[in-house]
């Protein structure tokens, strides 16, 4: 009980970070799983979502304003995702698609810095959620608990959507065997564009939700992208469950691990990733029937 008490705040921080990383990384994972596209602009989409908060929310913004900002971020993400899907669709070859998305990410980063400046912008938590609450004797920010809850709800909805509905079956089938889905008469490119748009919308929403914790600044897009890549690879490409487990693991490594082993802090994340890849090269929860190791 003493250990839990001492590390409770770290564990909660890890859950909050894990939840945010899940929202951001699940799109990256599904886009890779369905389209084999390594979307290096994913971090930029997420940062754009965070800057929606900077542009829309005043320091006295209430809960309603925050919901409006979330809807704007989601819409922006949908548009960006559909655009990215269309642009990468015209290009063949993994490396050239990655080159294209990196180019887009560089341009987007420059444009965002031009609009919002090079300084770290903070985004306020909505009024009413900006206080602290007592958790087993520790004061803890309410907003982070809300983030954990929102991420859990979205994870559940996404799981039900993909696992229990006709549409989800279509997406899973496209991940598993695109050729067969096309042979059945489905426009797989529309499925793929839909997944890309949905994934980007989640990334933008995740970026906005993360903004009151992480802020919004140039360079954050690279950090987010690297973390999301690690999450996706650790969890296993193309699966919601993999992204969730990977995100929770990375969240804990980044908070509890760092507070327990401060000297090794900088090695922990990539050391953990290397370890997972050595033991399970296709990630912890690989999708059945997908050659994740040989895309």
């Amino acid at each position, binding site marked *: 009980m003493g250990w839990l008490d001492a590390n409770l705040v770290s564990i909660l921080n890890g859950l909050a970070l894990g939840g945010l990383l899940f929202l951001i990384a699940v799109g990256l994972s599904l886009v890779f799983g369905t389209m084999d596209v*390594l979307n290096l602009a994913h971090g930029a989409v997420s940062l754009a979502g965070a800057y929606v908060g900077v542009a829309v929310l005043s320091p006295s913004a209430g809960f309603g304003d925050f919901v409006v900002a979330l809807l704007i971020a989601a819409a922006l993400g949908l548009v960006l995702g559909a655009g990215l899907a269309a642009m990468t669709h015209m290009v063949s070859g993994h490396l050239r698609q990655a080159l294209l998305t990196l180019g*887009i990410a560089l*341009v987007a980063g*420059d444009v965002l810095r031009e609009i919002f400046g090079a300084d770290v912008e903070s985004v306020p938590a909505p009024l009413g959620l900006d206080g602290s609450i007592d958790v087993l004797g520790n004061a803890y920010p309410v907003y982070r608990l809300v983030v954990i809850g929102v991420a859990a709800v979205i994870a559940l909805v996404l799981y039900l959507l993909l696992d229990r509905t006709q549409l989800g079956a279509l997406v899973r089938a496209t991940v598993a065997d695109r050729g067969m889905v096309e042979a059945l008469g489905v426009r797989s490119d529309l499925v793929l564009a839909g997944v890309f748009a949905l994934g980007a919308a989640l990334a933008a929403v995740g970026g906005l939700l993360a903004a009151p914790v992480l802020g919004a600044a140039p360079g954050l897009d690279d950090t987010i992208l690297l973390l999301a890549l690690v999450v996706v690879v650790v969890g296993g490409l193309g699966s919601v469950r993999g992204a969730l487990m990977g995100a929770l693991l990375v969240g804990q490594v980044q908070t509890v691990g760092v507070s327990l082993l401060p000297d090794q802090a900088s090695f922990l994340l*990539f*050391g953990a990733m290397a370890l997972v*890849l050595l033991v399970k090269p296709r990630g912890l929860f690989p999708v059945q029937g997908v050659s994740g*190791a040989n895309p």
Partner: protein
Amino acid sequence: MTSTSGGPSPTSASIERPTPAGGVGASSSRRSRARLGRLVGLAVFLVLAALPIFLAPYPISLAGRILAFALLVVSVDVLAGLTGLPSLGQIAYFGVGAYTGGLVAIHASDNAFVQLGAGVLVAALVAAVTGAVAVRASGIVFLMVTLAIGELTHKLADGLDAVGASNGLAGIPPITLYPGGEPLVLAGVTYWWVLLVFLIGFGVAATVSRSPLGRSMRGVREAEPRLAAIGQLSYATKLAAYVIAGAIAGAAGTAWTVQTRFISPGDLAFSVSAIALLSVVLGGAGTLWGPVIGAAVVVLIRDWVSGYVSGHGELLLGLLFIVAVYALPNGLAGVASGRLRRRRAAMAGAPVAGEGQP
């Protein structure tokens, strides 16, 4: 420079393809292409060697940095282009070479050959140990394992006090070429040393590319199971490619420190790895000389042209990448050799196959 030394062997840029009509016409075209390649190579070498006579110290040090970065990119091309193993980790061996060279210079010897030898040796050793694990993976997993290797090296350099931690390794003395020789402080003279290292590294990569090992590497890229089926050891091939690429990257690292006389963890960042890999794609993967041009274009835009547009180097670089993806399907190398390749294909009666898409 990509053409073969003649005879019926394939060009180093593409895998062996049966040429039904590969008689007099095709081989004479290939010979003329080889001659053209040698002439262009000689002309480029003369221009590069003459640069210090024409350029001021700053542009010359920029040219030296371009050569060192281009050699790093060549090492990425050996893996990504020739062997089909897209790597984000070559910056690790570049860093090992750079830090080893710098430490040797400070603590042991200011002789440039000693620094080069030590840097290459240590980088190759580290590549052998890490590569033994990394080449078990392929595709996206290989990409991520090498990313982890690169980032771990970056963090190691950032945390190790013996190499200056986040402040970097400073106070590296200028090189000498023979015991008791004068220290070379002029930018133009150190540039010649960097050029020499570049030529050696490029020569090693080109030689490997034309050797039987190079052909096995292309076999791994095109059809690894088939290579295994005919009794070739694909694991050994990949490991050999990895160690050679690591050694070349180490040489590039020593050239970098000789030039800048300073190395810091910032030089080993993820963005450098990403830009190195994408220089390969921009230039034309698998051709070796294409990625060199890609690297030069990238560094010139980032460090030189951006000076004229007040720090929008990343914007220009991004636009360049986007345009290149749509306009140059085979990279810059594809533009240069496209005409010749079409002619050759017409003679051979075979369709032109795209390159550089593992």
